[in-house]
């Protein structure tokens, strides 16, 4: 049973003071449904990490009812910052299992609480008993990997800094992006240190947002869309939540496994991908993500970005949306944003930088690489 995306929707990403979780979910979800000619879904899967910040759990029922689909099976999927990708994986599996129309919504409202509260909750993606008890922030955990990677592979501060420059260059043209501002390398490498060696411009912003993908079984696709995009593969893989029991600190094994399996299922390789959205919560995450996707050898991605690779016009073009750094990172929604962006690239209607593409990929990473979903899409 082949599965296609027959509708997408997303909200602008940002600090959206006037919108709650249900408002965001409705804006993205109803847009995706509208694209199908208002076809009701048979199930709704919600990707979300921290709706507890809004004192709101039980998102499946809340959103199904609020959108006008009371009675429809609906539930939340959580995999930290990888919740959106995980929700796509579950939604895809539901369609493959015989539920013909599934709406996947990723939604996050991180600015509902004061920033210190949100920062503390984001660190809950780490191992509470063996990491968090010692006090690392989420940026701190990623900083441990960044220092190790730079020193092991002889990567300079300038080379790592080029990631943020490219992301802001791309995101500047994305009307949905949270931070639409070009930055130069000097600004990046001289920005305030958050968790040494991670600086402000190595980190993604704290964002609100929602994105939605309407998945349909093959025999429904022609009725619902003139521009379907086919899901060639969805593959999820896990690693230890703690970074301590991993063999290597200079790679994300779950991202490597997830990418390999996605390529195998789709019958393509890294060289076939025209456009990719990778998960750059921090510059180091983006670099490790590019390497996990097979677009660069381990230790080489930052150097290649610094040399001008992966920019618009290159194959693959990476993060034309601006990535997590510029588009933003509404954590449980991010994985769904990525799929929406790649779908729009393949349809040719992405409203920012356009990439002529036949094959696209989206990589969504939860925790410090502990729960990763890779999705491959084709026209």
């Amino acid at each position, binding site marked *: 049973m082949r599965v296609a995306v027959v509708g997408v929707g997303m909200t602008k990403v940002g600090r959206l003071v006037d919108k709650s979780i249900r408002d965001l979910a409705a804006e993205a979800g109803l847009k995706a449904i509208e694209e199908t000619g208002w076809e009701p879904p048979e199930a709704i899967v919600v990707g979300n990490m921290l709706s507890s910040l809004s004192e709101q759990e039980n998102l499946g029922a809340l959103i199904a009812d609020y959108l006008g689909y009371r009675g429809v099976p609906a539930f939340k999927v959580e995999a930290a910052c990888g919740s959106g990708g995980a929700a796509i994986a579950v939604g895809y599996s539901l369609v493959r299992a015989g539920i013909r129309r599934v709406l996947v919504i990723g939604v996050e409202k991180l600015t509902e609480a004061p920033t210190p509260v949100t920062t503390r909750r984001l660190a809950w993606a780490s191992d509470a008993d063996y990491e968090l*008890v010692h*006090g690392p922030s989420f940026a701190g955990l990623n900083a*441990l990997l960044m220092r190790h990677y730079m020193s092991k592979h002889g990567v300079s501060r300038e080379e790592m800094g080029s990631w943020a420059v490219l992301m802001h260059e791309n995101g500047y043209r994305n009307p949905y992006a949270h931070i639409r501002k070009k930055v130069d390398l000097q600004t990046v490498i001289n920005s305030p240190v958050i968790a040494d060696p991670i600086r402000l411009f190595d980190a993604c912003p704290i964002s609100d947002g929602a994105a939605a993908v309407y998945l349909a079984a093959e025999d429904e696709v022609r009725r619902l869309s003139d521009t379907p995009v086919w899901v060639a593969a969805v593959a999820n893989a896990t690693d230890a939540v703690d970074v*301590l029991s991993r063999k290597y600190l200079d790679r994300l094994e779950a991202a490597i496994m997830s990418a390999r399996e996605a390529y195998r299922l789709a019958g393509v390789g890294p060289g076939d991908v025209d456009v990719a959205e990778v998960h750059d919560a921090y510059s180091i995450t983006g670099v490790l993500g590019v390497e996990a996707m097979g677009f660069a050898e381990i230790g080489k991605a930052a150097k290649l970005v610094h040399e001008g690779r992966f920019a618009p016009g290159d194959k693959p073009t990476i993060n034309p949306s601006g990535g997590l750094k510029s588009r933003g990172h509404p954590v449980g929604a991010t994985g769904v944003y990525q799929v929406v962006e790649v779908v729009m690239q393949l349809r040719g209607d992405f409203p920012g930088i356009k990439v002529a593409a036949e094959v696209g990929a989206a990589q969504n990473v939860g925790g410090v690489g502990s729960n990763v979903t890779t999705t491959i899409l084709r026209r």
Partner: protein
Amino acid sequence: MTSVQRLWRRAREYLGLKALKCRRCGEVIYPPKRACPYCGSRDLEEVALPRRGKVITYTVINVPIEGFPKPTVIAVADLGGAKVMAQVVEGAEELVEGAEVEVVLGKVGRTVEGLEYYMPALRVVSDKSPDEGDTD
């Protein structure tokens, strides 16, 4: 934030630097798991990690999470083949990759009840340290 109950539950393990060793492949497993993540064996024995080792990587966190010091200095140290995370509470100014460290008891944070708590923490052993060797 952790709690008195959560710290009490693992007090013996934390303070004794307990880890597991796989009887099949010989790897040290830390944090403990119910099977060896490297070979899958469930034939595991408890071991105590050595109290000296070397820093693999570290970070100085200027924007710490609530309940922890500013800055929070965190290192991952190799203790007898296990990678262990801990706060660096002494000698942080001499912290580099490869630095020798020893485990001391350090006041690391506050529990949800508002109590200060102690955990195994790291002291950077410098060449100038006069008291080298006064712990096992």
